[in-house]
């Protein structure tokens, strides 16, 4: 059976501790110093470094083809082997990370920014609020991958549609969260206090409401990055991803799918990278979430 002694709730006697303890670190930093946060951060750092240092780590051009064809790890100085066109797999994975990072690091913040702008608009006036909410509904109601197909068909292939699709998908995610946060924070007593103290509406928003409503957004940012990795992969899967031959984690993984049964090492590299990245980001999100909710 399950244990059911209540597990949360602060120790009543411990309340004064925090009060007199030396000024605490910023909660985000504290979160990242937990075992969970550290593990996540290490995983993310590993992958990000791999991507950033791709030119140094791999001695091969990720698009250079050779007559090798699909080759096993270790062949001719290819640590992970080569893909079906004889390209070095390690460098494809590393450069794939690089591409992915380039895409998601641009797309997710862009989506977050737009979502936040929409949320601010919603906070401004009830009519705007209704309109913004309908826009969110609309974006959420569209199946993402169909949207991806359509956007790519209109704009042509490349990074731009991938970035746009991911950003678009993230708009309501962040927008709804921030809107909710603003509505909650707006009623908080310290906001009323600031208003009574003469703080203007806009200053109250910037100085008081937003900083306190932003915590869940930071968690969401980490989670959305993982979603973006998947969305990029799914778009590659449907043939509407980043322009080949530039590798992405999704496209390398896709290319490996026909060989999954016979040459699993082909899929192992990109899969490991995707999993490590996503796992790391979720751990970071988890750690932040726990710290913020304390």
């Amino acid at each position, binding site marked *: 059976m399950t*244990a059911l*002694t*209540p*597990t*949360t*709730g*602060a*120790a*009543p*006697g*411990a*309340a*004064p*501790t*925090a*009060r*007199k*303890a030396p*000024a*605490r670190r910023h909660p985000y930093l504290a979160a990242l110093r937990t075992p969970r946060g550290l593990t996540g951060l290490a995983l993310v750092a590993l992958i990000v470094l791999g991507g950033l240092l791709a030119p140094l780590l791999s001695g091969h051009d990720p698009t250079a083809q050779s007559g090798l064809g699909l080759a096993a790890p270790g062949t001719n100085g290819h640590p992970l082997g080569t893909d079906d066109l004889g390209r070095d797999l390690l460098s494809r994975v590393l450069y794939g990370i690089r591409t992915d990072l380039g895409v998601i690091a641009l797309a997710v913040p862009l989506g977050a920014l737009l979502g936040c702008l929409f949320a601010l608009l919603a906070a401004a006036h009830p009519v705007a609020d209704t309109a913004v909410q309908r826009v969110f509904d609309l974006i959420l109601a569209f199946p993402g991958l169909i949207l991806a197909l359509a956007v790519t068909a209109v704009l042509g292939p490349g990074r731009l549609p991938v970035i746009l699709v991911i950003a678009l998908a993230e708009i309501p995610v962040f927008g709804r969260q921030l809107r909710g946060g603003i509505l909650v924070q707006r009623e*908080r*007593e*310290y*906001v*009323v*206090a*600031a*208003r*009574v*103290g*003469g*703080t*203007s509406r806009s*200053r109250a928003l910037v*100085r*008081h409401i937003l*900083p*306190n409503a932003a915590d869940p957004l930071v968690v969401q940012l980490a989670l959305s990055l993982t979603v973006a990795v998947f969305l990029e992969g799914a778009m590659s899967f449907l043939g509407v991803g980043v322009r080949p031959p530039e590798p992405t984690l999704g496209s390398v993984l896709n290319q490996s799918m026909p060989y999954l049964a016979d040459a699993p090492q082909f899929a192992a590299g990109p899969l490991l990278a995707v999993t490590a990245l996503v796992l790391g980001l979720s751990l970071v999100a988890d750690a932040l979430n726990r710290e913020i909710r*304390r």
Partner: protein
Amino acid sequence: MTTTPSSTLASERAARTDAELLEVRDLSVEFTGSDGRPVQAVRDVSFTLRRGETLAIVGESGSGKSTTAFAVARMLPGSGRVTGGSVLLDGEDLVTADERRLRTVRGARIGMIFQDPMTSLNPVLTAGRHLDEVLRAHGYGDRAARRARAAELLGLVGIPDPERRLDDHPHRFSGGQRQRILIAMALAGEPDVLIADEPTTALDATVQDQILNLLTDLNRRTGTALVLISHNMGVVARTCARVLVMYGGSVVEDGPTDRVLTRPRHPYTAGLLAAVPRLSAPSGTRLTGIPGSPPDPARPTEGCAFAERCAFAEDGCRAARPRLVTLDDGVRAACPPAAARTEPLSGPAAPERIDRPAPGSTVLAAENIRKVYRGRGLTGRTKGFTALDGVSLTLAAGETLGIVGESGSGKSTLARVLAHAHPSDGGTLRLHGQDITRPSRAALREVRRAVQMVFQDPYASLNPRMTVGQIVAEPLISLGLGDRRAREQRVAELLRQVGLDPSAAARHPRAFSGGQRQRIGIARALAPEPTVLICDEPVSALDVSLQAGIVNLLGDLQRDLGLALVFIAHDLAVVRQVSHRIAVMHNGRIVETGSADEVCENPRDPYARALLAAAPEPVPVAPHERPASSAVPA
């Protein structure tokens, strides 16, 4: 889920009538602090409880009183754990009992009631289901029998029309009724002990009165022993025969309530009693407090925890933790000097008059103010709630206007309307004779400079992200007062003015205690040099020993700055002491106004009279009014 049939319980009960029902020996409890280190919340607490006895555990926040109560039922939250001692219930040690055994004890032998009836009932279960769950857990009859019993229990705790109300959800009951349901739940398993953790703290005085009556009545009628946890000496005085005073995790004094109240032996008990505002204290007198702040359990001291704040402390007090010593009249105190002392400690001090100037001309006037909150139900039906219904008042320079009322009376709404935090829906507001009901942008700035507000909750009203300096400087920046340097100087000056060190400016609010935070809130309100300060329950979230500091600070500031104060509170005694005039609010209206002493001594309005009657005073009550004393029923 095995439950001991009630027949067995009954026989056990019959077999041991004369022994100690509950015996707590050297109980110690630890929590894990936020930094991972153990924090000792309770150390070496011992007490006994006999059948039918009433015992109060009194202390301020952090004293370990609630923790002790939870530890008895092994209900410690979070990382809490018993690190030593034993809890013997009819000789059986609950500290070593397993979860399964504990479940047969909880509810059936020990019932518990909690502080907040709003959150202690499950919002999705009906009152009937709440009781049914408990009855079911203790194997009580079939469905129909349980329902009948549930209705009976609701009737027992004084809910009218119990059969019909069984199917109502908690949000359909008032706060007092919810507390009654909780009591019914605690009684459903016919326990031998009822532990009530601050059962009336969240309730209004009149309701508190009813609940306390119910508890004492039940104690008399069912013979259930009562352990009452409270910070309120008044509540203790009228409810319990014996009292245990806790400070810093230890018991400092223990004895029959009347003796402890009349002649406290421990300096802390004495200080606590002195700090409680008395209704009898006239307007314009100073409150007494205890200097310093409560100890930090994470950093225990070697000796007596109270030594730092104790006027009688000797060197020996700081060397070793004093043990409880039985004194001559059955009172035990953990204070070595007290044993040697023969003369009583100074009791409630004689009220000290404040030297304050007479009020000047009218600063702020409100006429016929109305405020209606629009209902926002799921159905969209706008069922408005009238929070203020034609309120008129005036406030003169240097005057303190006390506003008292129970929750929902509209006093907080009035505060916010006066401070222009919420717009009013009708009526006129005048500042220095000028209509400021709907001020222009420029006029509003002037209003903000002149009218400032201090909030109830010192935790919620300070932005956790900003430093104290930023918080206090915020109104200066917003109103464009002074440059950066001037603001820094002003912040330092303000912090000094409210009794804080200017170095506090660099720290975040979380580094401060409740009392200190309230001072920060006051400093912020004073920043633009207002002429009117609206204080919405400024001390009700604070411990009694700290209330005096804040209230006296406000008095001093009024004297020094000529402030007009609106002082809102639910505690009549405090309001009387600080106010020139008092307005009693009820259902959005002012039902009575007059000079403070007049209203408190000769209330005309029936509601004001009820409010006065319900206020508990920390004075011993005649034995016949109090429940069964330590005498064991034969």
